[in-house]
């Protein structure tokens, strides 16, 4: 508790000041702790106190394609692909969606094919 108040007062006057590399990790841990206070923990929350000593709830991400056993990632399936494309038209990275590497590889090539035939946009929204 004392740690938390100390860090919050320290960060308030100079956000983004000098950050020693060693102090980075407890720093982020504290910040996510505060985030946890603002929001109630998610219902599916697991992994409290992970190996890195981080104390925030994070839902375990799973690969949609592995779970639902979708093997065919086709460029024609715009509805499926659109779930993995951001508003800006960018491919959403694996670390955000939780898709496993082999599936992300197929997914990205399918999205690129779909872009080529004007099913998905290169940039901006497909209205």
């Amino acid at each position, binding site marked *: 508790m004392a740690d938390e108040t100390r860090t919050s007062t320290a960060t308030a006057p100079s956000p983004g000041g000098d950050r020693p590399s060693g102090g980075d990790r407890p720093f982020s841990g504290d910040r996510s702790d505060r985030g946890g206070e603002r929001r109630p923990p998610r219902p599916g929350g697991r992994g409290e106190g992970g190996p890195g000593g981080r104390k925030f709830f994070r839902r375990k991400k799973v690969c949609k394609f592995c779970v639902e056993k979708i*093997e065919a990632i086709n460029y*024609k399936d715009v509805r499926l692909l659109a779930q993995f494309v951001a508003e800006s038209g960018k491919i959403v990275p694996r670390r955000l969606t939780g898709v496993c590497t082999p599936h992300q590889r197929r997914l990205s090539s399918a999205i690129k*094919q779909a872009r080529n*035939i004007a099913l998905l946009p290169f940039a901006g929204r497909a209205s």
Partner: protein
Amino acid sequence: MNRTYELMFIVRPDMPEEEQDKLISTLETAVTTSGGQMKNVERMGKRHLAYSVRRFRDGIYILLTVEGSGGLIHELERRLRVTEPVIKFLTVRIDEEQKRLDKIKAIRDARRKVSATPAAAPTAAEQAGEAPAATA
């Protein structure tokens, strides 16, 4: 050495149906003369394009499934390029992907069969004990 390809192309939205038919039939004759085979023709209809192509906002999508050699695909792409109403096209080879999918499906089916008929080979008592629990 025949391979299966998907040839998707977009024609301009104001192209009449008869002309589309004409275009498809000319492509089909080109396929058959060079020893290939037109497996399927699918008209996906008019769709909104994700971005404007040659100042068109819409386009009529047509999908052909063609079996043939690489030279045939080269010829088909050349034809599409010189055909005025075709605004975009994409060729994708699908036989290897199909093979992969078939393999996965076969494995899954085999696994399902094993789990569906556990009484077929209940040699060990442990397996026999497991079987009703699995079906229940």
